[in-house]
């Protein structure tokens, strides 16, 4: 139900932050704000580079250990992309607020924990990247991410892109992969039970979604084309989002 929805994004939604983005895809809606470079606290100050701080706020309640884990994953990935050496002794703060997550299919379950981070990781990465771009924070490269689940159904193996929580629950393995715009594997998180061969297939599928090298002009047509097996091309999406943002920004240039 969620796999076919195209990602949606709006940039600069928060008036008081340096950059912000609202992103919704596969049932998740997130808002990110980026402020930076700002003054760092003494304990976070690095003599040679900026400290990247990521804060993940859940839709309800306060963050727990799960959020800390997501934060540390994002922090290590974003610090690779941001040119941290440009801003010594300062802080670049990324706050991600989860607004909406897909309904759980079960009736009687309490809020699903740890495994949920797999499905939400790509949305977190995308939102953070969009907000950083909107803030004009100097970066080495951009990145795109996706989640893939391997589901065994009737003896056959099937790859599900952007799995729903129900599919995550029944999948034999779930994978999140993020690629930089230089086609480097930035982040790879996998959980479940799988073999090297299966991981290879997952890698292929994810790479197809994240790094399809489409020429800029034809790409627009391809995204609209519903016959394409994997409908979303994340890199093209990122590009077209930024293009419209820059065009709007430069109207009063």
């Amino acid at each position: 139900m969620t796999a076919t929805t195209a990602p949606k994004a709006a940039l600069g939604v928060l008036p008081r932050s340096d950059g912000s983005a609202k992103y919704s895809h596969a049932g998740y809606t997130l808002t990110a704000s980026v402020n930076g470079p700002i003054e760092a606290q003494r304990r976070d100050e690095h003599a040679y580079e900026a400290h990247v701080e990521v804060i993940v706020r859940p839709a309800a309640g306060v963050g727990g250990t799960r959020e800390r884990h997501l934060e540390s994953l994002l922090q290590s990935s974003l610090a690779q992309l941001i040119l941290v050496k440009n801003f010594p002794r300062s802080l670049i703060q990324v706050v991600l607020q989860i607004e909406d997550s897909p309904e759980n299919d079960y009736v009687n379950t309490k809020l699903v924990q740890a495994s949920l981070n797999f499905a939400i990781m790509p949305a977190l990465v995308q939102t953070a990247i969009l907000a950083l771009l909107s803030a004009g924070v100097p970066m080495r490269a951009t990145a795109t991410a996706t989640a893939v689940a391997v589901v065994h159904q009737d003896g056959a193996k099937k790859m599900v892109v952007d799995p729903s929580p129900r599919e995550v629950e029944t999948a034999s393995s779930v994978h999140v992969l993020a690629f930089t715009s230089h086609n480097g594997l930035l982040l790879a998180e996998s959980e479940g039970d799988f073999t090297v061969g299966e991981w290879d297939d997952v890698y292929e599928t994810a790479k197809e979604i994240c790094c399809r090298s489409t020429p800029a002009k034809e790409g627009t047509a391809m995204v609209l084309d519903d016959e394409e097996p994997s409908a979303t091309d994340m890199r093209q999406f990122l590009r077209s989002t930024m293009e419209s943002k820059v065009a709007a920004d430069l109207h009063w240039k």
Partner: protein
Amino acid sequence: MSAPTIKLPAPLFARLSPHPFLLRNLTSAADPSRPATRTNGRGTQETRPLHAKASSLSHAHGSSLVRLGDTTVLCGVRGEVLPVERVPLFRPVDRGGVGLGRGELRDYDLLVPNIELATGSAPQFLPGVPPTALAQTLSTRVYSLLHSTGMVGVEDLRVWSKPAGGGEDTEMEGAGEGQEEEEGVKEEDRVVAYWVLYIDLLFVSFDGNPFDAAWAAVVAALRNTSLPVARWDPEREMVVCSRTEKRQLNVKGLPVACTAAVFEEKELGEVGTGVPEGRHWLLLDPDRLEETLCREAITMVVDCSDGETRIKSIEKQGGTAIGRELVRGFATIAEKRWKEVQGAMK
């Protein structure tokens, strides 16, 4: 090559400029043909031997002490009975029904890992501070892996109102109390309580690679865990545990974690076209100095106990040096590590 005029002792050099220190050790300028050696004397693909000792705590239901070089972790497993009346949103379970094994474990929080990094185990852990991000991250990773591997089956943690199958358990409790059995027949068989396993880990000393050590300690402690036989006492309407009889916890498989960090000569993306990229080394089982110098790390959890190598988890973050080929190659390294750890666990 001109000899340096000032000679610094190695520990001072390591403290002053750790990155060149490790780099010089790895490149070993004196003899390029020699294999790269790390500052701790190990080869790049050489791990520290793992020592595991089971049942080191007398009051826990299961425990282990794992040493990985200078990283020492103590793990204690303690079971506590959780009556179903105290479970919010409890759904009754049928015996023999397929049920949602993983769902129960997760929904009722039957496995509770907690990690503490003891003050003084490493200089960066200060007394009197809230749990560090590292401790919280480790807890989450252990928690997810415990659930995703399905090492502990929920059947072992259920306490039924009537003992299972009427096997040896019946003999124990039977003891001439025929009346009770009659009542048990009338009453429908149901789950009355769950065992909750509190898995507490304490880092006694910390010298890098905390996750491998913590996970090995969890596995060793769970394999060592025996829970007292618990049964439902209908007269007192409560669960009673046998003082003498214990049942070994069934632990499925032997997942082993294997971590490596990537040490880079140059910084990523700083190389223009036409210039050779900086070299990088995969340092297996990194120590504390190496961890502070490496941004990228990979952890792979494998289980070869069924003969075939099954990957249970991959966690790779913080850089782009590890690509597809390296991940594939790392599976072989993890396999080798699995054999070593399997030997140590016996």
